[in-house]
Protein backbone atom coordinates (compact mmCIF):
# COMPACT_ATOMS: atom_id res chain seq x y z
CA UNK A 1 0.00 0.00 0.00
CA UNK A 2 2.76 2.42 0.99
CA UNK A 3 4.58 1.40 -2.17
CA UNK A 4 1.55 2.31 -4.32
CA UNK A 5 1.36 5.73 -2.63
CA UNK A 6 5.03 6.32 -3.40
CA UNK A 7 4.42 5.45 -7.06
CA UNK A 8 1.40 7.75 -7.17
CA UNK A 9 3.36 10.61 -5.62
CA UNK A 10 6.12 10.06 -8.18
CA UNK A 11 3.63 10.11 -11.06
CA UNK A 12 2.00 13.30 -9.80
CA UNK A 13 5.34 15.04 -9.34
CA UNK A 14 6.31 14.10 -12.89
CA UNK A 15 3.39 16.26 -14.02
CA UNK A 16 3.45 18.92 -11.32
CA UNK A 17 7.19 19.64 -11.29
CA UNK A 18 7.49 20.75 -14.94
CA UNK A 19 4.30 22.76 -14.50
CA UNK A 20 5.82 24.50 -11.47
CA UNK A 21 9.10 25.04 -13.34
CA UNK A 22 7.23 26.58 -16.26
CA UNK A 23 5.22 28.88 -13.99
CA UNK A 24 8.38 29.88 -12.17
CA UNK A 25 10.03 30.88 -15.46
CA UNK A 26 6.95 32.91 -16.42
CA UNK A 27 6.79 34.71 -13.07
CA UNK A 28 10.48 35.50 -13.12
CA UNK A 29 10.29 36.73 -16.68
CA UNK A 30 12.93 34.22 -17.75
CA UNK A 31 11.33 33.19 -21.02
CA UNK A 32 13.97 34.83 -23.19
CA UNK A 33 13.50 36.96 -26.28
CA UNK A 34 10.62 34.90 -27.67
CA UNK A 35 8.32 33.88 -24.79
CA UNK A 36 5.64 32.29 -26.97
CA UNK A 37 8.19 30.04 -28.63
CA UNK A 38 9.59 29.17 -25.20
CA UNK A 39 6.16 28.07 -23.94
CA UNK A 40 5.46 26.13 -27.14
CA UNK A 41 8.76 24.27 -26.93
CA UNK A 42 8.48 23.72 -23.18
CA UNK A 43 4.96 22.25 -23.31
CA UNK A 44 5.80 20.25 -26.45
CA UNK A 45 8.93 18.75 -24.89
CA UNK A 46 7.08 17.77 -21.72
CA UNK A 47 4.17 16.26 -23.65
CA UNK A 48 6.64 13.94 -25.36
CA UNK A 49 8.55 13.16 -22.15
CA UNK A 50 5.36 12.33 -20.23
CA UNK A 51 4.09 10.29 -23.16
CA UNK A 52 7.30 8.24 -23.10
CA UNK A 53 6.97 7.85 -19.32
CA UNK A 54 3.39 6.59 -19.78
CA UNK A 55 4.50 4.11 -22.42
CA UNK A 56 7.38 2.97 -20.21
CA UNK A 57 5.00 1.56 -17.58
CA UNK A 58 4.14 -1.68 -19.39
CA UNK A 59 7.81 -2.58 -20.09
CA UNK A 60 8.57 -1.67 -16.48
CA UNK A 61 5.99 -4.16 -15.27
CA UNK A 62 7.33 -6.80 -17.64
CA UNK A 63 10.88 -6.26 -16.38
CA UNK A 64 10.18 -5.93 -12.64
CA UNK A 65 6.98 -7.90 -12.22
CA UNK A 66 5.54 -5.02 -10.16
CA UNK A 67 1.91 -4.01 -10.69
CA UNK A 68 2.27 -0.39 -9.48
CA UNK A 69 3.49 0.96 -12.86
CA UNK A 70 0.17 -0.08 -14.43
CA UNK A 71 -1.78 1.52 -11.59
CA UNK A 72 -0.17 4.94 -12.09
CA UNK A 73 -0.31 4.79 -15.88
CA UNK A 74 -3.56 6.79 -16.08
CA UNK A 75 -2.12 9.64 -13.97
CA UNK A 76 0.81 9.94 -16.37
CA UNK A 77 -1.45 9.68 -19.41
CA UNK A 78 -3.71 12.46 -18.18
CA UNK A 79 -0.73 14.71 -17.41
CA UNK A 80 0.50 14.06 -20.94
CA UNK A 81 -2.87 15.21 -22.25
CA UNK A 82 -2.81 18.29 -19.96
CA UNK A 83 0.56 19.41 -21.37
CA UNK A 84 -0.61 18.68 -24.90
CA UNK A 85 -3.67 20.92 -24.29
CA UNK A 86 -1.43 23.74 -23.04
CA UNK A 87 0.76 23.27 -26.12
CA UNK A 88 -2.21 23.37 -28.50
CA UNK A 89 -3.80 26.31 -26.66
CA UNK A 90 -0.60 28.41 -26.87
CA UNK A 91 -0.56 27.84 -30.64
CA UNK A 92 -4.29 28.65 -30.96
CA UNK A 93 -4.06 31.87 -28.93
CA UNK A 94 -0.68 33.36 -29.84
CA UNK A 95 0.09 31.94 -33.28
CA UNK A 96 -3.44 31.99 -34.68
CA UNK A 97 -5.20 34.58 -32.48
CA UNK A 98 -8.07 32.04 -32.37
CA UNK A 99 -8.63 32.31 -36.13
CA UNK A 100 -10.43 29.14 -37.22
CA UNK A 101 -9.86 29.89 -40.90
CA UNK A 102 -6.12 29.98 -40.23
CA UNK A 103 -6.36 26.74 -38.27
CA UNK A 104 -8.15 25.12 -41.21
CA UNK A 105 -5.49 26.44 -43.58
CA UNK A 106 -2.66 25.11 -41.37
CA UNK A 107 -4.38 21.71 -41.07
CA UNK A 108 -4.52 21.40 -44.84
CA UNK A 109 -1.15 22.94 -45.77
CA UNK A 110 1.23 22.15 -42.91
CA UNK A 111 1.77 18.45 -42.46
CA UNK A 112 3.40 18.78 -39.04
CA UNK A 113 0.30 20.64 -37.80
CA UNK A 114 -1.95 17.94 -39.28
CA UNK A 115 0.04 15.25 -37.47
CA UNK A 116 0.05 17.12 -34.15
CA UNK A 117 -3.65 17.90 -34.34
CA UNK A 118 -4.51 14.26 -35.10
CA UNK A 119 -2.47 13.17 -32.09
CA UNK A 120 -4.41 15.65 -29.95
CA UNK A 121 -7.76 14.26 -31.22
CA UNK A 122 -6.65 10.70 -30.42
CA UNK A 123 -5.48 11.62 -26.92
CA UNK A 124 -8.73 13.57 -26.38
CA UNK A 125 -10.69 10.38 -27.01
CA UNK A 126 -8.42 8.47 -24.62
CA UNK A 127 -8.66 11.14 -21.90
CA UNK A 128 -12.47 11.20 -22.13
CA UNK A 129 -12.73 7.41 -21.84
CA UNK A 130 -10.09 7.09 -19.14
CA UNK A 131 -12.59 6.76 -16.27
CA UNK A 132 -13.54 3.48 -14.57
CA UNK A 133 -17.11 4.01 -15.80
CA UNK A 134 -16.00 3.98 -19.44
CA UNK A 135 -13.71 1.06 -18.75
CA UNK A 136 -16.73 -0.96 -17.58
CA UNK A 137 -18.98 0.23 -20.35
CA UNK A 138 -16.52 -0.61 -23.14
CA UNK A 139 -15.25 -3.86 -21.59
CA UNK A 140 -12.69 -5.52 -23.88
CA UNK A 141 -13.12 -2.84 -26.54
CA UNK A 142 -11.61 -0.35 -24.04
CA UNK A 143 -8.22 -2.02 -24.39
CA UNK A 144 -8.48 -1.96 -28.18
CA UNK A 145 -9.45 1.73 -28.09
CA UNK A 146 -6.59 2.66 -25.80
CA UNK A 147 -4.07 1.08 -28.15
CA UNK A 148 -4.55 4.36 -30.06
CA UNK A 149 -1.81 5.72 -27.79
CA UNK A 150 0.71 3.98 -30.10
CA UNK A 151 -0.21 5.85 -33.31
CA UNK A 152 -0.70 9.05 -31.27
CA UNK A 153 2.84 8.79 -29.87
CA UNK A 154 4.32 8.14 -33.31
CA UNK A 155 2.44 11.14 -34.73
CA UNK A 156 3.74 13.32 -31.88
CA UNK A 157 7.35 12.28 -32.41
CA UNK A 158 7.15 12.76 -36.19
CA UNK A 159 5.42 16.13 -35.67
CA UNK A 160 8.57 17.29 -33.83
CA UNK A 161 10.96 15.77 -36.37
CA UNK A 162 9.07 17.42 -39.24
CA UNK A 163 9.34 20.99 -37.97
CA UNK A 164 13.04 21.31 -37.14
CA UNK A 165 15.18 23.15 -39.66
CA UNK A 166 18.44 21.18 -39.74
CA UNK A 167 19.35 19.79 -36.33
CA UNK A 168 17.37 16.56 -36.00
CA UNK A 169 19.28 15.19 -33.00
CA UNK A 170 16.65 15.84 -30.30
CA UNK A 171 13.58 14.68 -32.22
CA UNK A 172 15.48 11.54 -33.25
CA UNK A 173 16.30 10.80 -29.60
CA UNK A 174 12.58 10.96 -28.71
CA UNK A 175 11.70 8.81 -31.71
CA UNK A 176 14.32 6.17 -30.87
CA UNK A 177 13.20 5.86 -27.24
CA UNK A 178 9.62 5.56 -28.47
CA UNK A 179 10.54 2.79 -30.91
CA UNK A 180 12.36 0.88 -28.16
CA UNK A 181 9.32 1.18 -25.88
CA UNK A 182 6.99 0.06 -28.65
CA UNK A 183 9.41 -2.75 -29.53
CA UNK A 184 8.94 -4.17 -26.03
CA UNK A 185 5.33 -4.82 -26.88
CA UNK A 186 5.98 -7.06 -29.84
CA UNK A 187 5.29 -10.70 -29.01
CA UNK A 188 9.00 -11.56 -28.91
CA UNK A 189 8.57 -14.90 -27.16
CA UNK A 190 6.16 -16.10 -29.78
CA UNK A 191 8.42 -14.81 -32.60
CA UNK A 192 11.55 -16.32 -31.06
CA UNK A 193 9.73 -19.54 -30.25
CA UNK A 194 8.63 -19.92 -33.84
CA UNK A 195 12.18 -19.32 -35.07
CA UNK A 196 13.58 -21.86 -32.64
CA UNK A 197 10.94 -24.36 -33.71
CA UNK A 198 11.84 -23.72 -37.34
CA UNK A 199 15.57 -24.06 -36.62
CA UNK A 200 15.14 -27.34 -34.81
CA UNK A 201 12.81 -28.58 -37.54
CA UNK A 202 15.65 -28.07 -40.02
CA UNK A 203 18.18 -30.01 -37.95
CA UNK A 204 15.97 -32.89 -36.85
CA UNK A 205 14.82 -34.75 -39.97
Amino acid sequence: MIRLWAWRAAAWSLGLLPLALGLKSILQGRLGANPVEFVEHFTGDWTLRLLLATLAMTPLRMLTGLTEPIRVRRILGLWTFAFLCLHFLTYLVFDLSFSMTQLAEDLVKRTYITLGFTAWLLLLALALTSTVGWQRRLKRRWITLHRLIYPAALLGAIHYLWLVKADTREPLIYLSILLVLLGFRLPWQRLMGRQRARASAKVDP
Partner: protein
Amino acid sequence: MLIKVAHPFPIKPSEITPEVVHADRRRFLRQAGLATAGAALFGYGPAKSVGAEAELAPLNVARKSEMAGGETVTPYADITHYNNYYEFGTAKEDPSRNAGRLRTRPWSVVVDGECEAPGHIDIDDLLKPQALEERIYRHRCVEAWSMVAPWVGLPLADFLKRFRPTSKAKYVAFETLYDRQQMPETARGVLDWPYREGLRIDEAMHPLAFLSVGLYGRVLPNQDGAPLRLTLPWKYGFKSIKSIVRVRFMERQPEVTWNKMAPDEYGFYSNVNPAVDHPRWSQAQERRLGELFKRKTLMFNGYPEVASLYTGMDLRRFF
Protein backbone atom coordinates in the same frame (compact mmCIF):
# COMPACT_ATOMS: atom_id res chain seq x y z
CA MET B 1 25.10 64.49 -36.24
CA LEU B 2 21.69 62.95 -36.67
CA ILE B 3 20.37 62.85 -40.20
CA LYS B 4 16.80 61.69 -40.65
CA VAL B 5 16.52 59.98 -43.99
CA ALA B 6 13.08 60.31 -45.52
CA HIS B 7 12.01 56.80 -46.20
CA PRO B 8 8.94 55.41 -47.95
CA PHE B 9 7.29 53.08 -45.51
CA PRO B 10 3.94 51.31 -45.81
CA ILE B 11 2.90 51.72 -42.16
CA LYS B 12 1.38 55.03 -41.11
CA PRO B 13 3.18 56.65 -38.13
CA SER B 14 -0.21 56.82 -36.39
CA GLU B 15 -0.40 53.03 -36.39
CA ILE B 16 2.77 52.58 -34.41
CA THR B 17 2.41 52.39 -30.65
CA PRO B 18 4.44 55.13 -28.94
CA GLU B 19 7.37 53.71 -27.05
CA VAL B 20 6.13 55.09 -23.72
CA VAL B 21 2.83 53.24 -24.03
CA HIS B 22 4.60 50.13 -25.26
CA ALA B 23 7.06 50.13 -22.35
CA ASP B 24 4.27 50.74 -19.88
CA ARG B 25 2.27 47.80 -21.22
CA ARG B 26 5.22 45.52 -20.47
CA ARG B 27 5.60 46.97 -16.96
CA PHE B 28 1.88 46.37 -16.37
CA LEU B 29 2.11 42.77 -17.55
CA ARG B 30 5.16 42.18 -15.42
CA GLN B 31 3.50 43.55 -12.33
CA ALA B 32 0.32 41.63 -13.01
CA GLY B 33 2.43 38.49 -13.19
CA LEU B 34 4.16 39.38 -9.95
CA ALA B 35 0.92 39.93 -8.11
CA THR B 36 -0.14 36.34 -8.63
CA ALA B 37 -0.03 34.14 -5.62
CA GLY B 38 2.65 31.90 -7.09
CA ALA B 39 5.20 34.71 -6.99
CA ALA B 40 5.46 34.36 -3.23
CA LEU B 41 6.37 30.70 -3.64
CA PHE B 42 9.32 31.23 -5.92
CA GLY B 43 10.52 34.76 -5.28
CA TYR B 44 11.20 37.30 -8.00
CA GLY B 45 14.52 37.52 -9.79
CA PRO B 46 15.04 40.24 -12.39
CA ALA B 47 15.53 39.17 -16.00
CA LYS B 48 19.10 38.54 -17.08
CA SER B 49 20.90 41.85 -17.52
CA VAL B 50 22.94 42.93 -20.51
CA GLY B 51 26.13 41.31 -19.22
CA ALA B 52 29.78 41.76 -20.04
CA GLU B 53 29.20 42.54 -23.72
CA ALA B 54 28.32 46.11 -22.75
CA GLU B 55 32.06 46.52 -22.14
CA LEU B 56 32.81 46.05 -25.83
CA ALA B 57 34.70 48.95 -27.42
CA PRO B 58 32.54 51.90 -28.49
CA LEU B 59 32.70 52.95 -32.14
CA ASN B 60 32.84 56.43 -33.66
CA VAL B 61 29.62 56.87 -35.57
CA ALA B 62 29.67 59.71 -38.09
CA ARG B 63 25.99 59.64 -38.98
CA LYS B 64 22.81 57.90 -37.98
CA SER B 65 19.87 56.86 -40.15
CA GLU B 66 16.58 55.56 -38.85
CA MET B 67 15.42 53.13 -41.55
CA ALA B 68 12.81 51.02 -39.79
CA GLY B 69 9.87 53.42 -39.99
CA GLY B 70 10.32 54.58 -36.41
CA GLU B 71 9.57 51.16 -34.98
CA THR B 72 10.78 50.29 -31.48
CA VAL B 73 14.36 49.04 -31.48
CA THR B 74 14.74 45.53 -29.98
CA PRO B 75 16.60 45.52 -26.63
CA TYR B 76 20.32 44.70 -26.76
CA ALA B 77 19.84 41.68 -24.49
CA ASP B 78 17.40 40.10 -26.97
CA ILE B 79 19.53 40.81 -30.05
CA THR B 80 22.49 39.18 -28.30
CA HIS B 81 20.77 36.21 -26.65
CA TYR B 82 18.52 34.99 -29.45
CA ASN B 83 20.80 34.08 -32.35
CA ASN B 84 21.06 31.64 -35.19
CA TYR B 85 24.77 30.97 -35.53
CA TYR B 86 24.97 27.19 -35.97
CA GLU B 87 28.78 27.14 -35.71
CA PHE B 88 28.18 27.79 -32.01
CA GLY B 89 25.15 25.52 -31.52
CA THR B 90 21.65 25.24 -32.90
CA ALA B 91 19.61 26.50 -29.93
CA LYS B 92 18.92 30.23 -29.89
CA GLU B 93 20.81 30.84 -26.64
CA ASP B 94 23.81 28.62 -27.60
CA PRO B 95 25.77 31.31 -29.50
CA SER B 96 25.63 33.74 -26.55
CA ARG B 97 27.16 31.00 -24.39
CA ASN B 98 29.68 29.53 -26.85
CA ALA B 99 30.80 32.36 -29.14
CA GLY B 100 33.29 33.61 -26.51
CA ARG B 101 35.76 31.15 -28.06
CA LEU B 102 35.84 33.12 -31.31
CA ARG B 103 39.06 35.16 -31.72
CA THR B 104 38.26 38.27 -33.73
CA ARG B 105 41.86 39.65 -33.77
CA PRO B 106 43.93 39.33 -35.84
CA TRP B 107 41.33 39.06 -38.61
CA SER B 108 41.73 39.48 -42.30
CA VAL B 109 39.42 39.00 -45.24
CA VAL B 110 40.66 37.45 -48.47
CA VAL B 111 39.12 39.00 -51.58
CA ASP B 112 39.68 37.43 -54.98
CA GLY B 113 38.00 36.26 -58.17
CA GLU B 114 36.87 38.55 -60.99
CA CYS B 115 38.47 41.78 -59.79
CA GLU B 116 41.48 43.96 -60.67
CA ALA B 117 42.78 44.40 -57.14
CA PRO B 118 42.53 41.09 -55.30
CA GLY B 119 44.22 40.70 -51.96
CA HIS B 120 43.53 40.52 -48.29
CA ILE B 121 42.58 43.25 -45.92
CA ASP B 122 43.10 43.41 -42.18
CA ILE B 123 39.99 44.38 -40.24
CA ASP B 124 41.81 47.21 -38.43
CA ASP B 125 43.23 48.61 -41.66
CA LEU B 126 39.71 48.62 -43.01
CA LEU B 127 38.19 50.32 -39.97
CA LYS B 128 40.83 52.94 -39.06
CA PRO B 129 40.27 55.34 -41.97
CA GLN B 130 36.60 54.40 -42.43
CA ALA B 131 33.78 56.77 -41.44
CA LEU B 132 31.16 54.51 -39.88
CA GLU B 133 27.43 55.03 -39.93
CA GLU B 134 24.56 53.64 -37.92
CA ARG B 135 21.48 52.21 -39.63
CA ILE B 136 18.37 51.00 -37.86
CA TYR B 137 17.00 48.14 -39.93
CA ARG B 138 14.20 45.64 -39.61
CA HIS B 139 15.47 42.02 -39.58
CA ARG B 140 13.22 39.14 -40.61
CA CYS B 141 14.27 35.53 -40.02
CA VAL B 142 13.06 32.74 -42.32
CA GLU B 143 11.67 31.10 -39.15
CA ALA B 144 9.02 33.88 -38.96
CA TRP B 145 10.42 35.96 -36.10
CA SER B 146 11.79 39.46 -36.49
CA MET B 147 13.51 42.35 -34.71
CA VAL B 148 14.76 45.88 -35.22
CA ALA B 149 18.48 46.46 -34.74
CA PRO B 150 20.84 49.48 -34.82
CA TRP B 151 23.82 48.28 -36.86
CA VAL B 152 27.06 50.19 -37.27
CA GLY B 153 29.08 49.72 -40.43
CA LEU B 154 29.55 50.83 -44.02
CA PRO B 155 27.74 50.34 -47.32
CA LEU B 156 28.76 46.97 -48.78
CA ALA B 157 29.34 48.70 -52.14
CA ASP B 158 32.06 50.94 -50.60
CA PHE B 159 33.90 47.84 -49.43
CA LEU B 160 33.51 45.87 -52.67
CA LYS B 161 34.59 48.74 -54.95
CA ARG B 162 38.04 48.84 -53.30
CA PHE B 163 38.87 45.62 -55.13
CA ARG B 164 37.64 46.93 -58.50
CA PRO B 165 35.38 44.11 -59.71
CA THR B 166 35.58 43.54 -63.48
CA SER B 167 32.65 43.28 -65.90
CA LYS B 168 32.84 39.51 -65.45
CA ALA B 169 31.85 39.86 -61.78
CA LYS B 170 28.16 38.97 -61.98
CA TYR B 171 27.96 37.57 -58.45
CA VAL B 172 29.72 37.87 -55.08
CA ALA B 173 30.27 34.91 -52.80
CA PHE B 174 30.97 35.16 -49.05
CA GLU B 175 32.35 32.64 -46.58
CA THR B 176 32.25 32.43 -42.78
CA LEU B 177 35.25 31.34 -40.73
CA TYR B 178 35.39 27.56 -40.26
CA ASP B 179 37.67 26.55 -37.43
CA ARG B 180 36.99 23.39 -35.42
CA GLN B 181 39.04 24.69 -32.49
CA GLN B 182 37.03 27.86 -32.05
CA MET B 183 33.78 26.26 -33.20
CA PRO B 184 33.68 22.73 -31.71
CA GLU B 185 29.95 22.45 -32.49
CA THR B 186 30.83 22.22 -36.19
CA ALA B 187 32.10 18.67 -35.52
CA ARG B 188 28.44 17.58 -35.64
CA GLY B 189 28.08 18.53 -39.28
CA VAL B 190 24.56 19.93 -39.01
CA LEU B 191 25.41 22.07 -42.05
CA ASP B 192 28.03 21.73 -44.78
CA TRP B 193 30.77 24.02 -43.41
CA PRO B 194 32.10 26.57 -44.08
CA TYR B 195 28.87 28.57 -44.19
CA ARG B 196 28.56 30.21 -47.60
CA GLU B 197 26.32 32.92 -48.98
CA GLY B 198 26.07 34.89 -52.18
CA LEU B 199 24.45 37.83 -53.94
CA ARG B 200 24.00 39.03 -57.47
CA ILE B 201 26.40 41.95 -58.01
CA ASP B 202 23.58 44.51 -58.37
CA GLU B 203 22.07 43.32 -55.07
CA ALA B 204 25.44 43.61 -53.38
CA MET B 205 25.96 47.14 -54.76
CA HIS B 206 22.47 48.31 -53.71
CA PRO B 207 22.65 51.18 -51.21
CA LEU B 208 20.66 49.15 -48.63
CA ALA B 209 23.22 46.31 -48.56
CA PHE B 210 25.34 46.96 -45.48
CA LEU B 211 28.52 45.56 -43.98
CA SER B 212 28.12 45.68 -40.20
CA VAL B 213 30.95 45.85 -37.69
CA GLY B 214 28.97 47.10 -34.69
CA LEU B 215 25.70 47.01 -32.80
CA TYR B 216 24.22 49.61 -30.46
CA GLY B 217 27.23 51.88 -31.00
CA ARG B 218 29.78 49.26 -29.95
CA VAL B 219 31.84 46.55 -31.62
CA LEU B 220 29.74 43.55 -32.68
CA PRO B 221 29.36 40.84 -30.01
CA ASN B 222 30.77 37.53 -31.29
CA GLN B 223 27.37 35.82 -31.36
CA ASP B 224 26.08 38.50 -33.75
CA GLY B 225 28.80 37.83 -36.29
CA ALA B 226 31.93 39.71 -35.16
CA PRO B 227 34.07 41.18 -36.50
CA LEU B 228 32.14 41.81 -39.72
CA ARG B 229 28.96 40.53 -41.26
CA LEU B 230 26.44 41.39 -43.95
CA THR B 231 23.14 43.08 -43.14
CA LEU B 232 20.58 42.70 -45.91
CA PRO B 233 17.29 43.94 -44.47
CA TRP B 234 15.06 42.88 -47.41
CA LYS B 235 16.23 39.24 -47.32
CA TYR B 236 15.69 36.48 -44.79
CA GLY B 237 18.23 36.66 -41.99
CA PHE B 238 20.34 33.67 -43.04
CA LYS B 239 21.51 35.62 -46.14
CA SER B 240 23.23 38.11 -43.80
CA ILE B 241 26.32 35.96 -43.36
CA LYS B 242 28.41 36.35 -40.18
CA SER B 243 32.16 36.54 -39.37
CA ILE B 244 33.27 36.82 -43.00
CA VAL B 245 36.78 35.63 -43.94
CA ARG B 246 36.49 35.40 -47.70
CA VAL B 247 34.85 37.32 -50.53
CA ARG B 248 34.98 36.19 -54.14
CA PHE B 249 33.72 37.91 -57.29
CA MET B 250 32.26 35.30 -59.64
CA GLU B 251 30.87 35.01 -63.13
CA ARG B 252 28.46 32.22 -62.17
CA GLN B 253 25.96 32.00 -59.33
CA PRO B 254 27.79 30.61 -56.29
CA GLU B 255 26.61 27.67 -54.21
CA VAL B 256 25.06 28.82 -50.93
CA THR B 257 24.71 26.72 -47.77
CA TRP B 258 20.98 26.55 -47.04
CA ASN B 259 20.04 26.25 -50.70
CA LYS B 260 22.43 23.31 -51.05
CA MET B 261 21.02 21.75 -47.88
CA ALA B 262 17.33 22.00 -48.92
CA PRO B 263 16.87 23.53 -52.40
CA ASP B 264 13.07 23.33 -52.26
CA GLU B 265 12.97 25.26 -48.99
CA TYR B 266 15.65 27.96 -49.31
CA GLY B 267 16.19 29.77 -52.59
CA PHE B 268 19.29 31.68 -53.72
CA TYR B 269 17.46 35.00 -53.51
CA SER B 270 15.46 34.43 -50.29
CA ASN B 271 13.82 37.84 -50.40
CA VAL B 272 11.26 38.42 -47.67
CA ASN B 273 7.96 37.69 -49.40
CA PRO B 274 4.68 37.17 -47.50
CA ALA B 275 3.07 35.67 -50.62
CA VAL B 276 5.54 32.78 -50.99
CA ASP B 277 5.34 30.30 -48.12
CA HIS B 278 8.14 28.11 -46.86
CA PRO B 279 7.04 24.56 -47.78
CA ARG B 280 6.51 23.76 -44.11
CA TRP B 281 5.25 27.06 -42.68
CA SER B 282 3.60 30.34 -43.65
CA GLN B 283 5.63 33.48 -44.32
CA ALA B 284 2.58 35.77 -44.23
CA GLN B 285 3.12 36.68 -40.60
CA GLU B 286 5.98 37.05 -38.15
CA ARG B 287 6.52 37.43 -34.42
CA ARG B 288 8.49 40.56 -33.51
CA LEU B 289 10.71 39.89 -30.50
CA GLY B 290 9.01 41.61 -27.57
CA GLU B 291 5.50 41.10 -28.95
CA LEU B 292 3.14 38.24 -28.12
CA PHE B 293 0.88 38.18 -31.16
CA LYS B 294 1.99 37.89 -34.76
CA ARG B 295 2.07 40.80 -37.18
CA LYS B 296 1.84 40.88 -40.97
CA THR B 297 5.06 40.41 -42.90
CA LEU B 298 5.77 43.17 -45.44
CA MET B 299 6.93 42.61 -49.03
CA PHE B 300 10.74 42.92 -49.09
CA ASN B 301 10.41 43.37 -45.31
CA GLY B 302 9.07 46.89 -45.94
CA TYR B 303 11.92 48.02 -48.24
CA PRO B 304 10.14 48.54 -51.58
CA GLU B 305 13.15 50.41 -53.02
CA VAL B 306 14.79 47.05 -53.83
CA ALA B 307 11.85 45.96 -56.02
CA SER B 308 13.52 47.32 -59.18
CA LEU B 309 16.29 44.70 -58.76
CA TYR B 310 13.75 42.02 -59.54
CA THR B 311 11.61 43.56 -62.30
CA GLY B 312 10.34 40.92 -64.67
CA MET B 313 11.35 38.04 -62.41
CA ASP B 314 8.82 35.47 -61.23
CA LEU B 315 9.43 35.66 -57.48
CA ARG B 316 7.64 32.34 -56.93
CA ARG B 317 10.22 30.64 -59.08
CA PHE B 318 13.17 32.69 -57.91
CA PHE B 319 12.27 32.57 -54.22
